[in-house]
């Protein structure tokens, strides 16, 4: 199973993990690495590295909050350095992406999982005004 590290500014990682836990149950092989005020980029990188190493398995998906932010940049550095592990890295993590990543690991390997999570994240940003415009309903002949 692909191991997942969630990193981001402030308590974004532990926060989104608590939300994922509420809807999907407590997931195995997922570690949140918070980047809190006063911590150095170097310490964050070490913490991401430690999280990756704490996860068993060769395949790791790192979910970061903002592209170009320090958590994302440090995760990129970890990916560069830890060539022994197969690491993919996404930015722009939101609830739909995190849920998809945690939930689809049963069937998907790292590359597919990365695509699924990215797609779910994009699809999950929805304008309420556009909801319910699709009136089509799946029908079953001779069914209910």
């Amino acid at each position, binding site marked *: 199973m692909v191991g997942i590290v969630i990193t981001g500014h402030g308590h974004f990682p532990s926060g989104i993990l608590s939300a994922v*836990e*509420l*809807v*999907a*149950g*407590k*997931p*195995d092989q997922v570690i949140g690495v918070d980047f809190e005020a006063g911590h150095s980029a170097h310490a964050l990188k070490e913490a991401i590295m430690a999280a990756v190493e704490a996860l068993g398995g060769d395949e790791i998906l790192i979910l970061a909050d903002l592209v170009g932010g320090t958590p994302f940049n440090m995760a990129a550095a970890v990916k560069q350095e830890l060539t022994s592990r197969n690491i993919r890295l996404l930015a722009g993590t939101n609830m739909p992406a995190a*849920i998809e990543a*945690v*939930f689809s690991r*049963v069937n998907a390997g790292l590359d597919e999982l990365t695509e699924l999570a990215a797609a779910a994240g994009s699809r999950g940003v*929805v304008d309420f005004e556009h*909801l*319910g415009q*699709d009136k*089509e*309903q*799946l*029908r*079953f*002949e*001779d*069914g*209910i």
Partner: protein
Amino acid sequence: MVPNIVAFRIDERLIHGQGQLWIKALGVNTVIVANDSASEDPMQQTLMKAVVSKSVAMRFFSVQHTCDVIMKASPKQSIFIVCKTAEDALKLVAGGVPVKEINVGNIHRGPGKVEISKYIALGPEDKAALKELRDKHGITFNTRATASGDDGAAKVDLNKYLD
């Protein structure tokens, strides 16, 4: 023809974040929301449809209508039924919806209710309905809140609270 009911869940919030994952985990192609109020409320229906893939048929039936039509389900339909309360579950089962096991997901806290897990609180009316489901209709219960993962709720034995 007995309808293929893959799972039957009591959830005070009907289909929401957790429900969405249940549908995915179960791999069903039909969801019946058996609830009188939701069956007449386009807003609730819109919100519930929003979290479910378009490849899944969503049906919003009253409790009575569910009982009336359930036996007419197509053999191609694999069905997840969700209702709001233990009392509605009893009406559905007594009304002929053929299930053996019920997943008790969310029953929220309220005055006079006893909390038995972080997701389930039982009042006298819940207990009476669950007891009748068990004793008269032979229903067994499970209390997993989420479709996968350890949510800490799965280990609760509901039966302990029904005597």
